[in-house]
C-alpha cells in the first residue's frame, strides 16, 4: 500500500474542489460505506495476521488524514461562502404602529414618583367646585379681584346659599381644605394634587385650560426651611442635581409669607450667557431663555392661618407649606416644549412627537 501516493491523490482532489458540495462528495467516496477506505479494508482480509496488523494501522492513519483534510477544506470553503453574504443593516426595519403619551402624562408620572418617595400621596379633587373651596377657604373674600368675571370661569349650575357659585377651578388649591376635611382636620398632611385648571385667558402663552401640581404639607413645626428643603429635593430630582433654587418675596392670599420660586436656568445653567459658537470671539450674548440666569417656576408659601382654620386645623399647633406649579411650564423649562397652544388641539403632528 502506497500511503504517500494515496495522500497525494486526496490532496490533489481536494485542491480541485471549489464548493462545499464537491468536498462532501469526496467525503462520501472515501469515508462512505462503499468508500475507498472500506475498499482497502476489504482488500487486506486475505493477508497474514502480521501483515493485516501493519496494513490496518496504515489504513487507519490514512482515514484520519482524509477526515482531517476534508474538514480543513470544508472550513476554508465555508468561510469563503460566508464572505459572500452581506446585508445593509442600516435599511429600516418594519415597525409596529407607534402611539404616544401626551407630554402632560409623562410629566405627571415623573412628578408623582418624585413626591411619592418622600411620602406624599397623590389625590384628585373636583374640577367643578364651589367658590367656597376655590376662594373663601383660601382667604379670598368676595371682593378679591381674582374672583371677578375676568379671572374666573363661572358655570351655569345653580349657586348654593352657603357655598356660592359653581366655578371651574382656577387652581388646584381647592384641594387644600378638601384634603384637610378628608383627614378630619387631623395632620399630618402630605398631599400632591394634580389636576386641570381653568382661567379665561387664551393667547400665545396661555390656554384656558392648563395643569397644576399642588403640594401641601401640614404638620407640627413645619417651617420655611422645610419648604426650602422640599423644593430643593424636587428641583434637583426633576431638573438635575446641579439646579439651584431661590425664593423671592411675593404675594398670594392663601399663603403667608408667600414666595415666588426661581431655579437656575436649564439652558445656560445660571450663567445668563448664551452658548458660545466656536467662531464667536466677540462679546458673549445673553441667554435668550432666562436673560438673568434664573427661571420662574411658580408660587409657594406657608399656609395662611385662615386656610388652616377653614380646614378646622388650629394654626397655633400646626403649620404648613403649599405650592402650585404649572405642568406646562415645567415641561417648557425641562424639555423646551414652548408652544403650549399645541397641547390641547389634538393635532396628530404634535402628539406624534412624544
Amino acid at each position, binding site marked *: 500500500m502506497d500511503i504517500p501516493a494515496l495522500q497525494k491523490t486526496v490532496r490533489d482532489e481536494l485542491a480541485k474542489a471549489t464548493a462545499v458540495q464537491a468536498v462532501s462528495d469526496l467525503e462520501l467516496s472515501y469515508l462512505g460505506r462503499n468508500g475507498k477506505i472500506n475498499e482497502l479494508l476489504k482488500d487486506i482480509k486475505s493477508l497474514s495476521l502480521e501483515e493485516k496488523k501493519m496494513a490496518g494501522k496504515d489504513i487507519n492513519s490514512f482515514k484520519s488524514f482524509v477526515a482531517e483534510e476534508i474538514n480543513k477544506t470544508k472550513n476554508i470553503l465555508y468561510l469563503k461562502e460566508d464572505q459572500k453574504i452581506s446585508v445593509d443593516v442600516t435599511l429600516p426595519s418594519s415597525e*409596529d404602529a*407607534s402611539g404616544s403619551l401626551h407630554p402632560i402624562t409623562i410629566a405627571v408620572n415623573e412628578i408623582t414618583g418624585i413626591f411619592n418617595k418622600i411620602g406624599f400621596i*397623590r389625590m*384628585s379633587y373636583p374640577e367643578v367646585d364651589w367658590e367656597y373651596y376655590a376662594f373663601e377657604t383660601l382667604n379670598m373674600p368676595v371682593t378679591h379681584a381674582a374672583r371677578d368675571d375676568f379671572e374666573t*370661569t363661572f358655570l351655569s349650575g345653580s349657586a348654593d346659599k352657603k357655598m356660592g357659585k359653581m366655578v371651574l377651578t382656577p387652581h388646584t388649591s381647592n384641594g387644600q381644605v378638601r384634603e384637610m376635611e378628608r383627614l378630619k382636620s387631623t395632620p399630618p398632611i402630605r398631599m400632591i394634587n394634580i389636576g386641570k385648571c381653568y382661567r*379665561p385667558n387664551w393667547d400665545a402663552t396661555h390656554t384656558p385650560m392648563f395643569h397644576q401640581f399642588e403640594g401641601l404639607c401640614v404638620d407640627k413645626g413645619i417651617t420655611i426651611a422645610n419648604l426650602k428643603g*422640599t423644593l430643593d429635593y424636587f428641583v434637583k430630582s426633576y431638573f438635575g442635581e446641579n439646579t439651584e433654587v431661590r425664593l423671592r418675596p411675593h404675594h398670594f392670599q392663601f399663603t403667608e409669607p408667600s414666595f415666588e420660586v426661581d431655579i437656575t436656568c436649564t439652558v445656560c445653567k445660571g450663567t445668563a450667557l448664551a452658548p458660545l459658537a466656536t467662531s464667536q470671539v466677540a462679546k458673549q450674548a445673553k441667554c435668550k431663555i432666562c436673560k438673568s440666569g434664573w427661571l420662574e417656576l411658580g408660587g409657594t408659601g406657608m399656609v395662611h392661618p385662615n386656610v388652616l382654620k377653614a380646614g378646622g386645623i388650629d394654626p397655633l399647633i400646626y403649620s404648613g407649606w403649599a405650592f402650585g406649579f404649572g405642568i406646562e411650564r415645567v415641561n417648557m423649562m425641562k424639555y423646551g416644549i414652548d408652544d403650549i397652544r399645541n397641547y390641547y388641539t389634538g393635532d396628530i403632528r404634535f402628539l406624534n412627537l412624544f
Partner: protein
Amino acid sequence: MNIKITHSWLLEYLETDATPLEIQKYLSLCGPSVERIEEVNGETVYDIEITSNRIDTASVLGIAREAAAILPQFGKKAILKRKNLTAPESPSSVIPLTITDPEGVCRRVLGMVMEVNGVSKSPEYISKRILATDTRSLNNLVDITNYVMTEIGHPTHVFDYDRIVSHKLILRHAKKGEEIITLDEKKYTLDESDIVIDDGTGRVIDLPGIMGTANSVVTNETKRILFFIESNDPVSIRRTSMRYGIRTMASTINEKSPDVELAYTAFLRGIELFTEVAAAKPLSPLIDIYPNKVKTGLINTSKSFIDTKVGAAIPLKTIVSILSHLDFIVEVINGEELSITVPTHRASDVAIPEDIVEEVARIYGYFAIPSVLQRPAYVIQPKDKENLFHYQYEVKSFLKHKGYAEVMNYSACSPMLLQAFGQKQEDYLHITNSISEDIKFLRQSLIPSLVQNIKQNEGFAAHMYLFEIAKTYIPQKKGLPKEEFMLTIATNTSLDELKKAVVTLLKDLNIYPEIGQGGDSQFLFPNIQGTISSGDELYGYFGQVAPQFCRNLKIEKPVYAAELYFERLMMAARKMPVYKAFSQYAHITLDLTFKKIGSYTQIKERAFVASEKLISVALKDTYKDTITLRFVFTDPAKNLTEQEALEQLEKIKIGMESVKK
C-alpha cells in the same frame, strides 16, 4: 402691576453707595422684583413688579424705603431721605369752594384752589422723568399730578376751577344710564354702583379715582386750578374701571387701597410743586374731609414665634432693626415678646404675626435660611385613588404600545359639536362667561371630541388611533356635577381594530368581561354597538359612531369608538390573574360547523351549558349563515379519550339544535 422710576429720582429719597445693578439684585431677593434696568435718554430706569398687597411700594418713596431696609443687609450704605413738607397758610381772602361727601363714599377728600401763572411746558427734569415712566408729558399742571403719583404713590387730580361754575363738588353714586365723556373724549353710560362728582347742578364733572371728564379738566386757558385728591373705596374703583375697561395708573393704584395718610403727603408735595413750577398761590383754605382717621394696628408676637416659623434663629437685634427700617415701631418686652405698631402705609397688608414673620424673613434673606426636608410622615392614600393613578399610567402606556396616541382636549366643547351629535344644550352645564364659543359646554362624553380630532387630522394621517382619559361632568339635580373619568378609544380603521384594542387592554388588566350585543350609547349606531360588562357592572360601550353624526362633521369614513367608565375598570383591575393550575391531562380540540342562531356571545354560553368538559371556545370561520367553532375539552381528573370528547361535542350539537325549535 409694574412701575418705572429713574435712578436719579430714587436718589432724591435715598442716600446710597449701591449701583443700579446691586439695587436690582438685592431688592429682587428681599423685596419688590426689579425685572429690568433700561437706559432711556441718559436716565437709568428701573422696571419694578409691584404685588397687589404692596401698593405702598408703587412709588419712588416706597422703593426708597424698601431699599433703605434691604441694602444694609448686604453691607451697602442706604439711608432714607424724607422730604420736609408743610401745609401752606390759608389766604386772607378766600374764593368760594364747597366739597361734600353726603353718602360717605370716600375715606378722605382733599382740595384747594390755587392761582397759577398759566399753562406751559414742564421743566425738563419733570417731563424727562414722566416720559421715563411711560407717561405722556402734556403740560406743567397735568404733569405735576402724574409726577406726584409716581413719587409719593397716591393718585391726584387737577380741575380747572373756573370750568366748575357752581364751585361745588358733591361726591355721589351715579344714576343708572347717566352719561359722561372722559378727558380722552370717550363716552360711557354709567351704572348705579359707579361713583361720580356732581357740580351741584346734576352735571357730572369727574369719575373720581379713575379718570377726569372732558368738561372740567385743565385747558390751555386755565388760570385757577382746584388741586384734588380723594381716597376711594378700592372695590368700587376696581368694579367701575374693569366694567368700562378704563385701566389708568390711577385706577390701578386706587383699587389696591393706597394709604389714606399718604394722600396728605401727596397733597403737600403737589402744592410744593405747583408753587415751584407754576408760581401757584392759594386762593382757598386746604379742605380736608377725613371723618374716620385710619387706625394703626398693633401686633403682639415673639422672637420664638418668628424663629419657629422660619426654621432658623434670627438675632433679636436684627429683627428690631429690620422692622424699624420699614417704619414699624417695635417694643421688646423681656428680651422675647414683641409689641409692634404697624405704620399706616402697611395697614391693609400687615395684620397678623405671620405677616411680621414675612417682613423679618424676607429682609433677613430667604437665601440665608437653611434647606431641611421635614421629618417623614405616613399618610394613607385611599385605595380608589391608588388604583386610579397606578392603572391610569399602565393603561395609557399599554395603548401607546398598541399604536394609539393620547389626546387631551378641552373639558368643554362648542354648541356646534353638541348639535352635530344630536345633543340638547339645556342638558349640559355651560360656562357663563366663556371667552370662546369653542369651549362652552362641559363634556358628558369624550366621543364627540375624539371624532372631531379625527376630522381635524384628516390631512395629516389616513389611519387614526386616538384615546383620551378625562373627566366628564354630569349635572345633578342638586349640587356639583358628577365628575366621572372616562376612557375613550377611537379609530377610523375597523371595528375589529377597535375591539382588539379594548379586549386586549382588559385582558392586560386581568378583567374578563362579557360582551353583549346592542347598547344604549346615544353616540353609537344602534345596530353596531355592544356593551362590555361583568355581572351587573357595566364597564362601557363600543361600536360604530352613528353615521349621521359623522356626516354632520363631513367625515366620510366610518369611525369606531369605545367609551369605558374608567374608575369602574380600575376597581376591577388586578395585578395578577386569578390563579388556576394548568391541567395535567390531555386537551382534545374538535371543530364543529352549524347554523348560526343568535350572537356569538349567546352561542358560547350555550356551548358551556351543554358541555361540562369544555374549557375554551374560539371562532374559526363564518360562512353565509353557518359558523365554525373550535372547542377544547379536558377532564380535570383523567385523560379524556377521543370518544369521550366526541360525546361532549355531540352534546353541544344537540344544545345548538334545540334552539332552532
